[in-house]
């Protein structure tokens, strides 16, 4: 009986480690004997250790994770697609936690719970990636969302953070309800919740004969698109991303995109592929790309600009998903991987700059004179976001548009190219501010801490050198995409 749980060892470990950290934090942060110590960095390092051990259990125990697939197959599936997405999620989580230590201490933000609330939704996201049933999907989405609502409001003394958490709670509960409504409509119409059964019933279904099935699929699509900040369900994202603490914003920008993209790939490509749904996703991709490009131009704050940039990137990544082909899934995986690394890079720099009170784009003036390495790294990241060759962002967008052309989406690819060009305006504007403008306020030069430096070194190296040898990522993602179809 014990061996049945070999398949979920990573999840069991991370949840137990999180509880141990929570107990440790509660006991010692309120300890008079130890003089009520701040525990953010302590819990942070132990949290990072937990995530890395989870990654080890996942990577080293891959064949065992398919054990008792009949026991778990009613709820979860494990294949190469799942492994890739779960490993990427854990690496992103590790990167986010490593960003937190010094920035929380600098801001005198003594809430170890913020660190504990990062591995906790990670466990839910691991389940969500492998979910193969509507009930499992919803049971994984809800704990993830609840943790996000709390973590967005973790800075109790900041009204922006409290507002962000309240908004996220109210606006997030609504699409969760819509998603559950969709699952129940589909169950009511078909009697099936398992994606294998839904695939047999719904693939190629054009949606006109049963309004229940059509409403169900549409509701699940709306719920999922909201969670991923796709247009027209994106309005919550800039306010919440801006109000949340910056490491939390980084986590919210990266981790749910990975887990929900993987999950809706299973639901909509494997479970219910059809032309009607494809058109809905094409529309959302195009709208996200256009709005992400245009709305970001008016932004004056760095975090809001990155939030709108994230909305635009969701549009590009949705392009690969909307195609519904193996090349589309492969481009989705490449896009998510490169997006995760670029976003970790960008937010690490934003965090480092916030220590010098940089909040507005205008505050970036003359950064090149005070901190040239940061300025160069930030510029490289922005150029990669803009899709300028030969950086990794260009390779990601190239492959996404290539997949779109391959599936016959001849309108989507040119829209993507045009919006990329428009988007370059605000990315290059940041570089112009850093290198050519005078600062608006006094700037203090503070050296970056070691954790962020290491993180930036790794991600920047990847962004700049990816074009030299992209074939390992391409071949791995091709295998992962094939496995999601088999």
């Amino acid at each position, binding site marked *: *009986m*014990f*061996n*049945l749980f*070999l398949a979920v*060892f990573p999840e*069991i*470990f991370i949840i*137990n*480690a999180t509880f*141990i*950290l929570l107990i*440790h934090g509660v*006991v*010692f942060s309120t300890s008079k004997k*130890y*003089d009520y*110590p*701040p*525990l953010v*960095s*302590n819990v*942070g*390092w*132990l949290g990072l*250790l*937990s995530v890395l*051990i*989870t990654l*080890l*259990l996942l990577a*080293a*125990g891959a*064949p*065992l994770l*398919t*054990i*008792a*697939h*009949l*026991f778990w*197959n009613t709820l979860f599936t*494990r294949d190469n697609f799942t492994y890739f997405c779960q490993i990427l999620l854990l690496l992103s989580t590790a990167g986010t936690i490593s960003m937190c230590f010094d920035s929380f201490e600098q801001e005198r933000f003594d809430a170890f719970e913020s660190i504990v609330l990062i591995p906790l939704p990670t466990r839910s996201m691991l389940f969500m990636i492998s979910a193969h049933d509507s009930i499992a999907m919803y049971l994984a989405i809800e704990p993830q969302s609840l943790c996000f609502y709390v973590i967005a409001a973790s800075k109790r003394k900041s009204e922006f953070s409290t507002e962000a958490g309240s908004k996220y709670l109210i606006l997030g509960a609504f699409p969760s309800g819509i998603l559950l409504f969709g699952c129940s409509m589909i169950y009511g119409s078909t009697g099936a919740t398992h994606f294998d059964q839904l695939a047999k019933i719904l693939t190629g279904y054009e949606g006109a004969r049963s309004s229940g099935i059509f409403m169900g699929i549409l509701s699940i699509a709306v719920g999922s698109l909201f969670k991923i900040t796709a247009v027209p369900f994106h309005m919550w994202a800039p306010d919440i991303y801006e109000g949340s603490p910056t490491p939390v914003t980084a986590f919210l920008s990266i981790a749910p995109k990975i887990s929900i993209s993987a999950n809706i790939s299973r639901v909509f490509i494997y479970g219910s592929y059809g032309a009607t749904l494809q058109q809905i996703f094409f529309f959302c991709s195009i709208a996200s790309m256009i709005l992400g490009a245009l709305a970001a131009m008016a932004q004056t704050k760095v975090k809001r600009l990155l939030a709108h940039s994230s909305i635009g990137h969701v549009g590009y990544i949705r392009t690969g998903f909307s195609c519904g082909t193996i090349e589309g899934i492969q481009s989705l995986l490449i896009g998510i991987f490169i997006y995760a690394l670029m976003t970790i890079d960008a937010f690490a720099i934003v965090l480092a700059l916030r220590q010098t009170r940089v909040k507005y784009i205008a505050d970036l003036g003359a950064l090149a004179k005070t901190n040239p390495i940061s300025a160069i790294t930030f510029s490289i990241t922005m150029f990669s976001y803009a899709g300028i060759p030969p950086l990794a962002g260009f390779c990601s967008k190239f492959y996404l548009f290539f997949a779109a052309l391959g599936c016959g989406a001849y309108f989507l690819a040119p829209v993507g190219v045009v919006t990329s060009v428009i988007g370059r305006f605000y990315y290059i504007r940041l570089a112009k501010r850093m290198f050519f403008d005078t600062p608006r306020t006094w700037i203090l030069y503070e050296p970056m801490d070691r954790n962020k430096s290491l993180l930036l070194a790794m991600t920047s190296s990847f962004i700049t050198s990816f074009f030299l040898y992209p074939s390992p990522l391409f071949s791995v993602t091709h295998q992962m995409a094939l496995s999601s179809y088999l």
Partner: protein
Amino acid sequence: MNTDITASEKPQYPVIDRNPPFTAVVGNFNTLDYLRFSSITGVSVVVGYLSGIKPGLKGPSMVTGGLIGLMGGFMYAYQNSAGRLMGFFPNEGEVARYQKRGFSS
């Protein structure tokens, strides 16, 4: 509820025991498994100690790190040992021991 242990991936190595009990798996820990267990525990204790210096919590942090490492290290060693018995990981040692046991009985 189907509690069959069958995996969707076929074992690539000889299967010693398709569904080994807990005691058999723990009893099958070899030197490398104990090394994995102790390494992960040791690293976790060190991380706990070092991260506890700043807030002045060296001892308790070491214990917390040790607990996390103990759990993770045990799970990692268990995973490897069970995988060898089930035929998912290379298991020449187990096959030789099984053949020897089979020959002697």
